[in-house]
């Protein structure tokens, strides 16, 4: 272990993630990398370059497009696919709604976060994906802290936290029955700060959303929300222009911005180091109940 502790924490985490990606390539027939355009999945693509170049990725990039994405994230996604020359598959939540498989939420804060799972499960079935790689981290949320790196889901995409396989040393068991799939989380052991320090070290490009910019916003439950055509405004909403950035990027309907002047990676790292709230503190979808994430995961959500 002398050697182990000669590698910096970022190098150790990187090596572990590359090892996990290569295990996916070896153990599964039809894996996919779920790509959202956020910083964590951008890191996954960078790690895949490290794991498989000079060869091609042994999986396509798959984006489940809710239709409520930031334009900047979509443009970044398309540019990245072109730059790497890797295959990008996009499937749309709108199609699931149009087909009557998913029902749009009503009310003032409609979110497509939960119904994303419907489109995801259909996409898994369409391409017969047996493994889906995702950028979730255990530090994000308490239910995620419990999840294995190879997380087996049944034919309904459902996670049973009480029936997880023991996961020992770095021996991953990806054996599944037909219809089941495995969600794989190569950066489980990374924290938000690790991701940012890694982005700095590796000079990884990010969508402009992460850096401070002027944007029209409204206040919702003490959170700063971007004004977009996807949220309904009424007379009680006061639209203001503020200098903001996004700490996490999801749908425009559920991702809040933070007021920030940070416009370089160094600034962002300094900001996170002194921050008193978690990254998911700016996600409305997690604030719905004490077990919001656990319940969504049981329903097939990532």
């Amino acid at each position: 272990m002398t050697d182990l502790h000669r590698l910096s924490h970022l190098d150790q985490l990187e090596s572990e993630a590359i090892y996990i990606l290569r295990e996916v390539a070896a153990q599964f027939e039809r894996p996919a990398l779920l790509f959202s355009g956020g910083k964590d999945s951008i890191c996954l693509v960078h790690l895949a370059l490290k794991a498989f170049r000079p060869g091609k990725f042994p999986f396509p990039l798959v984006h489940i497009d809710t239709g409520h994405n930031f334009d900047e994230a979509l443009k970044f996604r398309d540019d990245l696919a072109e730059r790497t020359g890797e295959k990008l598959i996009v499937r749309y939540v709108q199609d699931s709604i149009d087909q009557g498989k998913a029902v749009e939420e009503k009310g003032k804060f409609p979110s497509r976060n939960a119904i994303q799972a419907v489109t995801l499960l259909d996409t898994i079935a369409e391409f017969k994906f047996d493994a889906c790689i995702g950028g979730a981290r255990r530090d994000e949320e308490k239910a995620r802290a419990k999840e294995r790196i190879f997380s087996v889901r049944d034919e309904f995409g459902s996670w049973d936290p009480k029936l997880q396989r023991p996961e020992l040393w770095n021996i991953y068991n990806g054996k599944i029955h037909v219809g089941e799939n495995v969600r794989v989380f190569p950066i489980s052991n990374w924290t938000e700060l690790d991701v940012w320090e890694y982005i700095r070290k590796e000079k990884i490009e990010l969508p402009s959303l992460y850096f401070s910019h002027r944007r029209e916003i409204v206040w919702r439950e003490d959170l700063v929300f971007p004004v977009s055509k996807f949220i309904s405004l009424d007379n009680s909403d006061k639209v203001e222009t503020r200098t903001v950035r996004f700490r996490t990027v999801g749908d425009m309907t559920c991702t809040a911005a933070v007021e920030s002047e940070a416009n370089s990676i160094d600034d962002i790292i300094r900001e996170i180091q002194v921050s008193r709230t978690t990254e998911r503190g700016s996600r409305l979808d997690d604030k719905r109940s004490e077990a919001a994430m656990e319940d969504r995961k049981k329903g097939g959500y990532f």
Partner: protein
Amino acid sequence: MDILRFITAGSVDDGKSTLIGRLLYDSKSIFQDQLEAIEKAGQVNGQINLALLTDGLKAEREQGITIDVAYKYFSTPKRKFIIADAPGHVQYTRNMVTGASNSDLAIILIDARKGVIEQTYRHSYIVSLLRIPYVVVCINKMDLVDFSEEVFLNIQKQYLEFAKDLDLKSIHFLPISALNGDNVVDLSASMPWWKGKSLLGFLEDIELHTEEESPAPRFPVQNVIRPQTTEYHDYRGYAGQIRSGHFTVGDSITVLPSGLKSKIKAIDTYAGSVNSAYAPMSVAIRLEDEIDVSRGDMLVVTGQEPTTSQDLEAHICWMDQKPMTPGSKYLLRQTTNAVKASIRSLEYRVETSTHEKKEQTSLALNEIGKVTIRTAKPVAYDPYSKIRGTGSFVLVDEGTNQTVAAGMLL
């Protein structure tokens, strides 16, 4: 900055989750929104319930116990820490083994009012079996024994007495109160007799060193990278993570189990080729000769070969509801290798709370014993006591696909 991975073990009410909560709280690693969420969930004896930070599942919060391993992260300017918060119940032994398998250090909690109990023996045995290099015995709830130094010293003596039979190389003791935070992050004013460090100070300063001074080089092959493009027409890189030791360009290599030989032509990373690489780096190795190498093979430096055999002896921890019976067939996964195997015999079961060896015909869920195994093909391995990365394996039931056992080769 490096990483220290540790596990916390202790009986149900010894306060493991509270200790972790305290460690995170006093080291200012808890965020405002997390605090608000647990404050909303209610208080215990007029204090916020820090255990709620780690018990992430609904069923755990309902029952107030830890069912599965939770991983928690925090860092100080000196180190990044990964905590495996494992359940203490005997029925969750397999989850404790899961958490222990990747740990450098174990914290064993003892209730100062109760002293060493059966669970302490069981947890210490697992820590010793999995060869976690460092053990910190935290004698908790010192506030309930008037912060008595005598109580602390008696428990220390009692623990050292029974630990004589175990293979624990480095044992340290600390008197704490997780509930109040005494000696967890800050030194306690209530125990002026304690001249040691706080728990966090100890975890930050402990020097992590090797089990062996110069472990033998081991490289299990994960994938073969063959781009077959014009630019990389003849490229054939063996991708994998170095499990132990160093590899340098020019090293003479033996491929196991085939025994074929070659030399290292290049060691590649995405950033470019390097002259040498060491554990646990993930790299791609190219060889001078076009020989048959595929996933599951192991590259080793010629002259430092491990054992290669179809007959294995191992300690296993049984992890499945369906008991293990000799004669059953499983898939054995060791490094990147998967091979059919059958359990020939069960030599004995270990009574984990007394360390006695008992004769028995099968192993039930959470039982630990010594077995002999026959594999369909030769397996290259080192004893677990020498190199954890090549001496560990799991057994998979090919009917259910479940991981049914954790094994440590002798």
